[in-house]
């Protein structure tokens, strides 16, 4: 089940999964999700940028902390999510009186 901080809780269930974070500068960073915080800042281990020829700038990065405000998408494996459960939780949260 998911608490009020829905997406924070959701990402916590994905710790240990391989994900690809797409940034608002179009970079795609692959890695294993290590942690997430209330701002949806993302820590990844074993990072690799998708287009290594275009982005040699970050070739020597071991891990990365990605600021939540620059994330466009987090691509996750379809099998890692119970979509029905997530939809249900999102519906419930949007119905909360605020």
């Amino acid at each position: 089940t998911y608490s009020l901080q829905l997406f924070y809780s959701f990402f916590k269930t994905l710790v240990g999964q391989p994900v690809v974070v797409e940034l608002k500068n179009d970079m795609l960073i692959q890695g294993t999700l290590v942690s997430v915080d209330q701002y949806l800042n993302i820590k990844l281990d074993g990072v690799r940028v998708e287009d290594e020829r275009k982005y040699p700038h970050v070739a020597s990065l071991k891990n990365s902390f990605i600021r939540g405000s620059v994330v466009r998408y987090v691509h996750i494996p379809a099998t890692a999510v119970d979509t029905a459960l997530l939809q249900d939780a999102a519906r419930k949260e949007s119905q909360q009186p605020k």
Partner: protein
Amino acid sequence: MDDLRNKKVLLVTTDGRVVVGILKGFDAQTNLILSKASERAFSTDSFREIPQGLHVVRGDTIAIIGEIDEEKDDAIDWPSVRADPIPAIRI
């Protein structure tokens, strides 16, 4: 970011700059203090390393920060690397 304290880090800023340095301090807004900072300026015809000394970086200008694999970093001949600059973050 606690595990990055006093480590050599690489930072990508929201305007596409790449800075390396030693992370001396940070706060919850990801404002940073970097010592021995230097900017790596990439272009299709040149590479420049620009020393910056002690730097305070405002958190909202940070896109990515990570630990450098020093072995990997030392093995790369940076002055020969040619690439377009990283694009700026766009909302």
